[in-house]
């Protein structure tokens, strides 16, 4: 053994390199305070390893990035672990860098002769933020896409070079494939390479002057060796961090936010947590002052960081004797935390889910009318009638019903027996409504309504199935795509791209409320009448038809995707409502369909994003890893205790 070691070292200086890395006296003794740098390094290496491993599956193209990542996460053994570690590692990295900087700041370790070590550290901080920004885009999901839209726009507000910078970053004037390619290369090649060099320089500079140690002379007299005293503490922190990341990956996996959809108007982007402070700060800089926020704040922060060792040149390091500095740092932290918490709690997400109800309520309704509005929205009225620009066009527009001079009684009769007013009326009798519901509904219809709902979306897109003209309707046959039910052709059998995309349930809920609920009922519970169809009702999706259901999320998604893409006509002599071909007609984007499918699966207790193949499930893997760790730790504690008592 010794012979081989000598043979190698006679040829290459392995021992010397190790000595440089490990052989150092720690002033003040080994300490857990000094593990933050090595912890950051550990997570960085973990990021490199898991990052490279993801590249075995991930492809940086806008049409397959999301699918390829999900293939890794759901169909590759331990893909969930590799991606989960990388995702949570990124978060840990930002936090650790922050804590490391805070420790250095409190200990005054940026002072002479360590100014350059500090400066390279600041560069590493900026690289970490750059990695965090570029990495978030790569899944090309809704969150990553919109973060990129906002982030590159912020870069675009830089004075003089803004437009050029943005153009360069996104590879043209529009975010797309070239943007993804550029962010991919930045994230996987350019920034990590620079980071590795910077880490080497940062480490070399650190080795030259060593740890800063305690500020009191008395404590400085204690000495211990970097190897193995400090290294063992570093390893304890590393192993705990590793367990924490495994726990997060197993029990709190990254969300599936749905495929990126540039045409989607219902998704309201919100910054990642580490940029929330900036996101919130920008709200205080309206209009012309915006640049102060987007460019001014980050520049100011960077300037403070860079100039810190040159502004604060007094040699004393004891924080108690540097009250000004400590106070400044404290104010900075409080500001950062407050803005982050405010940003986190800001109401964007809440207002988003209320899109539907708020859009119509700009005129105040009486309590009875409000209840009537609920009846109107949940009993299929919107399928045929429009109020304030929302709803179908099969029946008359009811926005100005209050101005037509109809009595409440007339309306109630029209609702329960439409043919008594017009024998040719295609309107189904809503005889299942009780007296109160009818009265409330009539109140609602007789209330004044705004011409168009604020924030209303394009009606042609919302419900294309209901734009049939009445002549077709009076012909008594709505089966425009009757081949769907008897089909011998092949098109009706085909699934679309949406069937293979992992949608987002929450987003699907919003889309379902917007586009599907009027016929399929609240939460897909059904109950909406469809006169002329065999069952008399629009099918319930909750629970869904047994023939469509499957425990396997892919099969289930395929089954409903065929219907959403190609439409279908219910069996029966003369069904008044039928399912339009939302995919083929491009009424919904494939991404929107994927989200709706995730929601419908969720209604039926199936998780669209269920891990399909795994040697051990996340839970089992966690139990094995955590169990081994506990066992090993107990042995170490026992040995340590025994030794202490003997000595």
């Amino acid at each position, binding site marked *: 053994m010794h012979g081989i070691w000598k043979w190698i070292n006679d040829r290459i200086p392995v021992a010397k390199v190790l000595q440089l890395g490990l052989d150092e006296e720690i002033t003040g003794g080994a300490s857990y305070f000094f593990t933050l740098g090595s912890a950051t390094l550990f997570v960085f290496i973990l990021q490199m390893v898991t990052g490279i491993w993801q590249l075995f599956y991930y492809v940086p193209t806008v049409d397959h990035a999301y699918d390829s990542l*999900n293939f890794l996460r759901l169909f*590759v053994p331990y893909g969930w672990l590799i991606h989960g570690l990388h995702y949570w590692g990124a978060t840990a990295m930002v936090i650790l860098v922050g804590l490391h900087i805070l420790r250095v700041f409190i200990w005054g370790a940026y002072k002479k002769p360590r100014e350059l070590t500090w400066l390279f550290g600041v560069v590493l901080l900026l690289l970490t933020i750059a990695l965090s920004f570029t990495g978030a885009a790569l899944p090309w999901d809704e969150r990553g896409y919109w973060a990129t839209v906002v982030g590159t726009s912020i870069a675009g507000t830089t004075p003089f070079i803004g437009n050029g910078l943005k153009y360069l970053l996104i590879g043209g004037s529009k975010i797309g494939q070239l943007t993804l390619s550029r962010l991919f290369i930045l994230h996987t090649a350019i920034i990590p390479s620079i980071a590795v060099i910077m880490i080497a320089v940062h480490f070399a500079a650190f080795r030259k002057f060593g740890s800063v140690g305690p500020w009191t002379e008395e404590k400085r007299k204690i000495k211990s060796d970097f190897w193995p005293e400090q*290294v063992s503490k570093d*390893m304890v922190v590393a192993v705990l961090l590793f367990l924490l990341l495994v726990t997060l990956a197993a029990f709190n996996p990254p969300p599936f936010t749905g495929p990126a959809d540039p045409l989607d108007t219902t998704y309201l982007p919100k910054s990642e947590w580490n940029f929330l402070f900036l996101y919130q700060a920008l709200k205080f800089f309206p209009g012309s002052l915006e640049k102060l926020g987007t460019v001014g704040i980050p520049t100011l922060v960077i300037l403070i960081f860079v100039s810190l060792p040159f502004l604060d040149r007094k040699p004393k390091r004891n924080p108690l004797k540097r009250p000004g500095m400590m106070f400044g740092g404290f104010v900075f932290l409080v500001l950062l935390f407050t803005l982050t918490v405010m940003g986190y709690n800001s109401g964007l997400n809440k207002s988003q889910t209320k899109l539907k109800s708020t859009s119509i309520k700009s005129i105040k309704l009486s309590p009875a009318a409000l209840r009537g509005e609920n009846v109107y929205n949940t009993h299929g009225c919107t399928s045929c009638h429009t109020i304030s620009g929302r709803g179908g066009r099969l029946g008359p527009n009811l926005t100005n019903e209050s101005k037509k001079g109809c009595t409440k009684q007339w309306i109630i009769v029209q609702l329960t027996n439409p043919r008594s007013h017009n024998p040719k009326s295609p309107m189904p009798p809503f005889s299942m409504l009780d007296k109160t519901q009818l009265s409330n509904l009539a109140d609602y219809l007789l209330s004044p309504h705004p011409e168009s709902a604020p924030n209303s979306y394009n009606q042609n897109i919302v419900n294309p199935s209901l734009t049939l003209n009445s002549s077709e309707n009076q012909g008594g046959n709505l089966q425009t795509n009757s081949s769907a039910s*008897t089909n*011998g052709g*092949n098109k009706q059998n085909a699934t679309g791209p949406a069937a*293979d995309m992992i949608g987002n349930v929450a987003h699907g809920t919003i889309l379902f409320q917007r586009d599907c609920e009027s016929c399929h009922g609240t939460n897909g519970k059904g109950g909406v009448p469809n006169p002329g169809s065999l069952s008399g009702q629009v099918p319930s999706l909750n629970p869904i038809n047994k023939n469509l259901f499957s425990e396997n999320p892919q099969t289930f998604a395929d089954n409903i995707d065929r219907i959403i893409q190609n439409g279908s006509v219910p069996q029966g002599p003369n069904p008044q409502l039928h399912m339009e071909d939302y995919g083929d007609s491009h009424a919904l984007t494939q991404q929107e369909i994927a989200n709706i499918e995730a929601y419908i699966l969720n209604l039926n207790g199936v998780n669209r994003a269920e891990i399909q*193949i795994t040697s051990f499930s996340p839970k089992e893997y966690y139990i094995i890893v955590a169990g081994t760790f506990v066992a*090993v730790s107990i042995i170490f504690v026992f040995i340590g205790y025994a030794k202490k008592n003997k000595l």
Partner: protein
Amino acid sequence: MLTDNFKQNDTPQITRRNFFKILSGVFAGFIAFSLSVPMIETLVGTISNKKSRSYSKVTSLNSIPENEPVEPSFVLTEEDAFIKSTKAQEVWVIKKSNSNVTIFSPICPHLGCRYQWNSDRKLFICPCHHSVFNIDGNVVSGPSPRPLDRLPKKIENNYLYVIWERFKPGIEKKEVI
């Protein structure tokens, strides 16, 4: 061990140092092992995971006439990891009754041309080298080394499903490519 000056320490110090060394080594090994096994599995686990060929829906049985070969087209989906591609594919379907259905690959087993049904002569005839088959797929005349290739099928809810396969042409044995 690593450097010479480490050896200078006195005995109790060494046991304490050894404890830290072992601790560092075991924890490093623990992380490396917990990570490397899944990483290997990530690469190995997907190789054997070739999806078995699945049934494609061809058409409804009602749309096929009895005792008259028809060539419906259906959508064939090919899966390659996360990339799915679809293409239209035709097969010959002969329905003798609702329970007796035969599906032939439309590729001539001789050299891979597309044969046709001659409804006057009630024979399948390949235009390339004039291989001739009867309605049951048996060779009537010509150079074909084997009968027409039957494809695996199933009938469910009055719909016909098929597993699309290709076979090596020009040989006597029916061999899947």
